[in-house]
């Protein structure tokens, strides 16, 4: 039998193709993919400064980008603390406390291959603070500038050293900088060049370049953007050249889907459409657990309070009344009502936090002591104290505001409070919060229920207790503050050694708990449910979670 060369060649090509197909099939089969159902109704912005609150930072910020400083997300049993990110070290100028010098990490590269250096830092500061810079983007200002209120400018010293300047001495700057993610200037320039020449207005060209950048982004993070379908899905793949070996991913691809409806999210998990969902429907948690999924939770830096009014005539001006309200709530029972998905608040931060400070007033459930205080203040069951609280029916971070507020209303009745709930639409409540308790929009309310992130000292404490943050400047809705608190804040802000700064903040926190300008109620615990095939999960005491070290088995 003779073998014709052409037939042999065909056979070989055929075998080769079959082998190739099988090989690619096995590669596909082995691809480790993690699919996440987010609560957001849209993919958080991908251009470097995410929107959608901290869910944005969690999914399109931290995985794709790095900041100069970052939160340590590797521990579940201790508060998340600040660690170096793209900056290896930093120090305030000894002579001029408004200047900081940051030493950058050598060898870090953007996903497009360009180098991360001092020029990139200056460029990223300018994108949100310098209106004259051609890459200035108004849409990124809101979510960035408000989280680093004192940063004013950046200056290159050498390739790996940069100087940042603040408007006043501010020891909180390194904490604030976790919110400034570094996008690639070279990649943006490439997008700008690709804008059609027919677009001549420089501002419009820059805007179009940012839109193109958002669809094909480049940061320095452990995951690289690979596919983006607006409002439907974001796919990121592992960055094998990531600068931190401990955070170099083993998961090949992460797919993020916006699933705003809690029941649909839960069904997506139960049906195997996704491997991880944020905030499962509370009623479904037992079923989720019974089907072998794991529900993770941990108290977050978040406070769910009633913020009290100190305006003239407010019933909360009497400290005994404020203490009584704090002592009259059975937080354990409320936690049970929420299916265990709540942390019991004893202050703005928890007792294991470096800013705790051992306050002399213990926030706990002691209705007898509460009634005694109310009696001393001249109130009784026959003569209850009327208070009015503005609350929302829903809203970001508000947990389950209606059942929670109704529970408080019922609880406080036993301590001679007659609580009126004024339920508003979330955006309206939010606008009122900025206007303050003396504004007509308060409609006679003397408390307001707006929750807050408490990751950095300004947002956790300063804005609520400084006389410089009375409305309309910031969120001291209740006009609480005095010289003592202003002095404590000034000390904390101008203490630049980390441990001493934390000690100063602890003194401030202790005094806040003692004076009780809030009814401290709950901390959110950020519940999320995952398939058992997702391994290496650490749910830190943070708003964030690190996907990079996780595995899919």
């Amino acid at each position, binding site marked *: 039998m003779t073998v014709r060369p052409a037939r042999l060649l065909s056979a070989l090509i055929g075998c080769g193709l079959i082998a190739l197909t099988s090989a690619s099939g096995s590669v596909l089969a082995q691809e480790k993919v993690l699919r996440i*159902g987010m609560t957001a*109704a*849209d993919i958080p*912005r991908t*251009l470097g400064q995410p*929107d959608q*609150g901290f869910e944005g930072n969690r999914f399109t910020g931290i995985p794709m980008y790095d900041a100069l400083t970052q939160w340590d997300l590797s521990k579940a049993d201790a508060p998340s603390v600040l660690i170096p990110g793209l900056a290896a070290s930093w120090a305030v100028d000894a002579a001029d406390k408004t200047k900081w010098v940051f030493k950058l990490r050598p060898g870090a590269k953007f996903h497009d291959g360009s180098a991360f250096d001092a020029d990139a830092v200056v460029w990223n500061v300018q994108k949100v603070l310098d209106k004259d810079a051609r890459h200035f983007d*108004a*849409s990124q*200002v*809101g*979510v960035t*500038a*408000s*989280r680093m*209120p004192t940063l004013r400018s950046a200056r290159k010293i050498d390739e790996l050293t940069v100087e940042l300047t603040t408007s006043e001495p501010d020891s909180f700057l390194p904490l604030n900088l976790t919110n400034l993610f570094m996008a690639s200037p070279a990649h943006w320039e490439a997008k700008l060049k690709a804008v059609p020449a027919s677009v001549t207005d420089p501002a419009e060209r820059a*805007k179009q370049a*940012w*839109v193109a950048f*958002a669809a094909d982004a480049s940061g320095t993070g452990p995951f690289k953007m690979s596919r983006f*379908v*607006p*409002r*439907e*899905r974001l796919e990121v793949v592992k960055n094998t050249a990531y600068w931190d070996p401990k955070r170099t991913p083993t998961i090949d691809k992460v797919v993020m*889907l*916006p*699933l*705003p*409806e809690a*029941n*649909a*999210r*839960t*069904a*997506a998990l*139960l*049906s*195997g*459409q996704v491997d991880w969902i944020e905030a499962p429907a509370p009623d479904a948690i037992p079923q989720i657990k019974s089907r072998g999924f794991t529900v993770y939770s941990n108290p977050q830096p978040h406070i769910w309070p009633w913020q009290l009014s100190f305006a003239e005539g407010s019933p909360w001006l009497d400290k005994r009344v404020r203490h009584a309200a704090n002592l009259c709530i059975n937080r354990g029972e409320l936690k049970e009502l929420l299916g265990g998905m709540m942390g019991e608040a004893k202050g703005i931060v928890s007792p294991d936090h470096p800013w705790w400070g051992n306050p002399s007033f213990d926030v706990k459930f002691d209705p007898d002591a509460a009634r005694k205080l109310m009696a001393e203040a001249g109130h009784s069951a026959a003569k209850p104290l009327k208070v009015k609280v503005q609350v929302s029916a829903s809203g*970001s*971070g508000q947990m389950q505001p209606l059942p929670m507020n109704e529970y408080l209303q019922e609880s406080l009745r036993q301590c001679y409070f007659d609580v009126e709930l004024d339920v508003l*639409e979330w*955006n*309206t409540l*939010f*606008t009122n*919060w*900025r206007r303050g308790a003396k504004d007509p929009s308060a409609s006679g309310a003397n408390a307001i229920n*707006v929750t*807050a*992130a408490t990751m950095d000292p300004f*947002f956790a404490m300063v*804005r609520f207790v400084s006389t410089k943050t009375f*409305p*309309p*400047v*910031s*969120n001291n809705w209740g006009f609480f503050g005095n010289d003592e608190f202003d002095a404590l804040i000034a000390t904390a802000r101008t203490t630049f050694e980390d441990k001493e700064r934390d000690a100063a903040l602890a003194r401030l926190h202790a005094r806040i708990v003692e004076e009780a300008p809030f009814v401290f109620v709950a901390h959110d615990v950020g519940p999320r449910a995952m398939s058992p095939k997702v391994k290496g999960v650490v749910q830190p005491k943070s708003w964030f979670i690190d996907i990079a070290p996780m595995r899919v088995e």
Partner: protein
Amino acid sequence: MIFYLLRRIVYTVPIMLGVAFFCFLLVHISPGDPLVAILPPDASVELQRQLMTLYGFDRSWPEQFFGWLWRALQGDLGTSIATGRPVADEVFRAVGNTLMLACLATLIGFLLGSLFGFVAGYFSNSWVDRAASALSVLGVSVPHYWLGMVMVIVFSAWLGWLPPTGAGPGGSDQWAWDWAHIQYMVLPAVTMSVIPMGIIARTVRALVADILAQEFVVGLKAKGMTDSGIFLHVVKNAAPTALAVMGLQLGYLLGGSILIETVFSWPGTGFLLNSAIFQRDLPLLQGTILVLAMFFVLLNLLVDTLQTAIDPRIQR
């Protein structure tokens, strides 16, 4: 006919302007901050003012309205505050997805509605009629977002037969007419079809019962026509009205269902509106409502024109 058509087109101009004006007014008078999408809860008032200026929200309402209208007339619906993407791109992508879903839902609704309607009409006042009528009343009355959730629980979470959310394994931009993709449409389309099904069933039932009682049917029977022959006559007489109702229902469904599309995360106009409302994304909200209103106006114009072509008396 041409003059009539021109007159109707001219009439649509003030309607469109009115829609644009009220749409602008409604989104601006509602309480809250127009920059809530890009301003975090804790932003200072100083920063809020700075951004109001940068986005032009510090200008007077007439200035903002006419500026927006002028750009809209040139085809520029502005850019979304939340995403920075052009509103026109967002809206037309969503309209395409809603169109697919609405057509399938209308088809299901029409087929089932006609079936129930004919059966009920033919066997009026029997238990079959009562059962079919009960089904159609249920279809009109049941809250469809609730039905959607129940279907998700049963067919996705319990049975695992159909995917609960999304528009295909790779998103709507990789849509293909194969089972891998169509299965994502089944639950939302069936949920969406329930209302048109109920309405069409009730309409067809009344039509069939009415036609069967007419003298010409008695005449046909007297001539010895078979039941199937009579059935064809009934279908011919009932079809125009049933089709008109179906067209109307398609028009309603094209507006997208906020609740159904949100429950199933279907990336149509309803899902887009939901997102725009919650983010208070004014340009996106205005643009979406304007485009949807244009659809309704144009659909009405088309229906009126067709009716006039069929029956010239309407011109008078």
